[in-house]
C-alpha cells in the first residue's frame, strides 16, 4: 500500500510549484494569526501541513480557498500571480478542498453527492447516465474498489468510504490541487490505510496534495515534504526523508529543531503575542 511513497519522493521538489504562497498575513481583529507564511506545493507531491492547535493551519487553508482571503501576501498559481476572493474562484483555478466534516448529503447516493451543485444536465433534466459514468471512471482512476454500488446512499457507507467519496468529488473537476483537512481523524486502522493509499494515488496521478494532519504516522507514510506551522509562522518546509519523527514533533511544539526552524528569539517573541 505504501510502495508509492518510497519510490516517489525525490529529495528536492523540482519544477514549478503548482501553488506558491509568499509572505501571507492574516489578522482577525487584533489577533495576528498568520505572519509571513511561505508555502510551495508541487504536482505529484504530498505536502503535509502540520502544526499544533491554533498554529494557523485552518486559516491558511481558508485563505487559499478564498473563504477568508489573506490580508496581504502574494499567491502564485502555476507561476502566475493570482488573487482569490471566493470559493468559486478557487474552484475555477483548480483548487478543491475536502473538509473534515466531508459535507456529504446522507440521503443522496454516491453519484448525486459527487455532482452536487454542479450537475450535468441535458436540457432541463439531469443527465444521470453521464454523471454515473464519469463518477465511475473517476473512482476507477483512483483504484477505489470498496464501493458496492454507485447508487448506494451515502448514509450506508463507512467512514472510510465516505472519505473516499468526498475525495473523489474533489478530483472530479480536473482539479490540480486537493487540500485534505484531517482525512483520517475519525477513522479506524484499516480505513486510515485505505484513505492514505488513496491520498498517495492522488499525487501519483499528478495532483498536488496538501494534507493537514495531527498524526505523525500519516505524515511519514505519505508525505513528500512537510510544512510545519508554529504560532502562525512557517517554522520550516522540509523534505520528509531528511527529518525524523522526533524532529517534526520538536518543530510543532517548539518551532525549531537543531538548526532547522525558527531562530529562538523569533519564536520566543511570538509566544508573548499568542493569545
Amino acid at each position: 500500500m505504501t510502495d508509492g511513497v518510497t519510490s516517489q519522493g525525490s529529495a528536492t521538489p523540482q519544477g514549478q510549484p503548482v501553488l506558491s504562497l509568499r509572505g501571507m498575513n492574516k489578522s482577525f481583529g487584533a489577533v495576528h494569526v498568520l505572519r509571513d507564511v511561505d508555502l510551495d506545493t508541487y504536482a505529484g507531491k504530498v505536502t503535509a501541513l502540520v502544526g499544533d492547535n491554533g498554529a494557523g493551519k485552518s486559516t491558511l487553508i481558508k485563505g487559499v480557498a478564498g473563504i477568508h482571503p489573506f490580508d496581504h501576501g502574494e499567491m502564485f498559481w502555476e507561476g502566475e500571480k493570482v488573487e482569490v476572493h471566493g470559493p468559486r474562484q478557487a474552484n475555477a483555478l483548480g483548487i478543491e478542498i475536502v473538509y473534515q466534516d466531508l459535507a456529504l448529503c446522507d440521503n443522496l447516493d454516491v453519484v448525486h453527492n459527487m455532482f452536487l451543485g454542479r450537475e450535468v444536465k441535458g436540457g432541463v433534466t439531469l443527465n444521470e447516465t453521464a454523471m454515473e459514468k464519469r463518477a465511475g471512471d473517476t473512482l476507477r482512476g483512483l483504484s477505489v474498489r470498496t464501493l458496492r454500488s454507485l447508487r448506494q446512499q451515502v448514509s450506508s457507507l463507512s467512514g472510510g468510504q465516505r472519505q473516499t467519496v468526498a475525495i473523489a468529488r474533489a478530483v472530479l473537476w480536473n482539479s490540480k490541487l486537493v487540500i485534505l483537512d484531517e482525512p483520517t481523524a475519525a477513522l479506524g486502522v484499516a480505513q486510515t490505510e485505505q484513505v492514505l493509499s488513496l491520498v498517495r494515488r492522488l499525487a501519483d496521478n499528478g495532483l498536488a496534495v496538501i494534507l493537514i494532519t495531527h498524526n505523525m504516522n500519516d505524515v511519514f507514510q505519505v508525505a513528500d515534504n512537510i510544512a510545519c506551522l508554529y504560532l502562525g509562522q512557517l517554522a520550516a518546509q522540509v523534505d520528509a526523508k531528511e527529518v525524523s519523527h522526533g524532529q517534526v514533533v520538536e518543530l510543532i511544539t517548539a518551532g525549531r529543531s537543531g538548526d532547522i526552524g525558527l531562530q529562538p528569539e523569533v519564536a520566543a517573541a511570538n509566544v508573548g503575542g499568542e493569545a
Partner: protein
Amino acid sequence: MSTAAPPASQFDIQEETGGSIGAAAREYWTRVKGGDMGSLPAIIGVVALVVIFGIMEGDTFLSKGNFANLINQGAAIMVLAMGLVFVLLLGEIDLSAGFAAGMGAAILATTLTERDWPWPLALLAALLTGVVIGFAIAVLVARLGIPSFVVTLAFFLGLQGAMLLIIGEGGTIPIRDDAILSVMNKNMPVALGWLFALIVIGGFAAATYMRIRSRRKEGLPTEAMSVWGLKVAALAVVVLIAVYLLNQERQRETAVITIQGIPWVVPLVTALVVGLSFVLARTAFGRHIYAVGGNAEAARRAGINVPNIKTACFVLCSTLAIVAGVLIASRDNSVSPTTGGAQTLLYAVGAAVIGGTSLFGGRGRVYDAVTGGLVVAVIANGLPLVTQQSGTQFIVNGVVLLVAASVDAISRRRAAATGR
C-alpha cells in the same frame, strides 16, 4: 461495517449479473429490513383497511358508487399532501396549508359568484394568492430565520381570520360555475377512460424502458427486463381494475340518468403527480431540495442557494394547497369559513407521512402523497359507515397519525443502526 477485506465485486459489474426477479426481491427485502420502507406501510394499510371495512360493512363500503366517492374524498387531501411533501423534504412544516386551501376556495367563490369573473381568471386569482402566501412564509422562514412551525402557526390563525372577513361570519358562498363544479362532479366518457388507462400504462412502460435502454447503452448496471415487466404488469392490473370498476354504472337500477366513468379529478391528480415527480426526481432543482433537506450546510458549500430552494418549496406548497381548496369547493358546491379547517391539514400531513415522507426531512416522494392519501381517504370514508360516533372517529384518526409518525421514527432509527 465491512472495512477489512474489500468485497471482490466491483461497483460497476454488480447488479448486472444478479438481475433476476428473485435477486430484486431479496434486494428490496434487505432495504425494508434496513429501515427504507418506502410506500410499503401505506400499501399494507390500504389493503388491511379495505379488508376490514369490507368485512364489517361490505354492502356499502365495497359498492361501486362508494369507490368513486372515495376518490373524490381523497383527491383534495392528496393534492394538499403533495405540496406538503416539498416542505417536509426540507425538514420544515406548513401548518397553514389547510387554511391556504380554504383561502383559495374563498377567493375563487367570491370572484366567481359575487363578481361574475370568468372561471380561468378566478382560478388565476386564487393561485396567485397561493404564491403570495407561500412567498410571505418563505421570507420569514428562509431569510429571517424564524422556525417554520411558528410562522405557519401564525399564518394558520391569520388566514382563518382573513377567510372569515372575506366570506362573512357564518355565511356560505355557493359556486355555480360549471367548469369548476365538473372537476369533482362529472366523469370521463367510458371510452376516454380506457384510453386514459392505456396512456398511463404505456407512458410508464415507455419512460422506464427508455431509461433502462440508455443505461444499457452506456454500459451501466440496470434493472433486469423481467423486473421491469413485472412492475409494468402490476401497474397495468391495478389501473385496469380501477378503470373497469369506475366505468360500471353506479346508479341504482331505477334511476333515469346514468353515472359511469372516471371522475375528471383523476386525470388532474395524475398529471400533478407525474409533473411534480418529474421536477423532484429529474431536475437539478429537485435534487437540490433533497440536498437541502439532507444537509443544508453541505448544500450551501456546494454552491446551492439554500434560501431560494426553501422559497420555491413554500410557494409550491401554498399554491398546491390552493388547488386542493378549489377541489374542495368543487366537491362541496360552496365555500364556508370552515373550508380547509378542522382535520384537513392533519389528514394531509398524515397522508404524506403514512406514504413514507419523513418528518425529519430529506426523504419522500410525490407519489407518497397518493398512497398515503388513499389510506386517509379509506379511513375517512369507511369509519363513518362502521360507527356514527364522531368521538371514536377522532380517536381512530389520532391513533393512525401516531402510528404513521412512529413508523417514520422507527425506520429512521433502524436506518441509523444499519447504516442505511
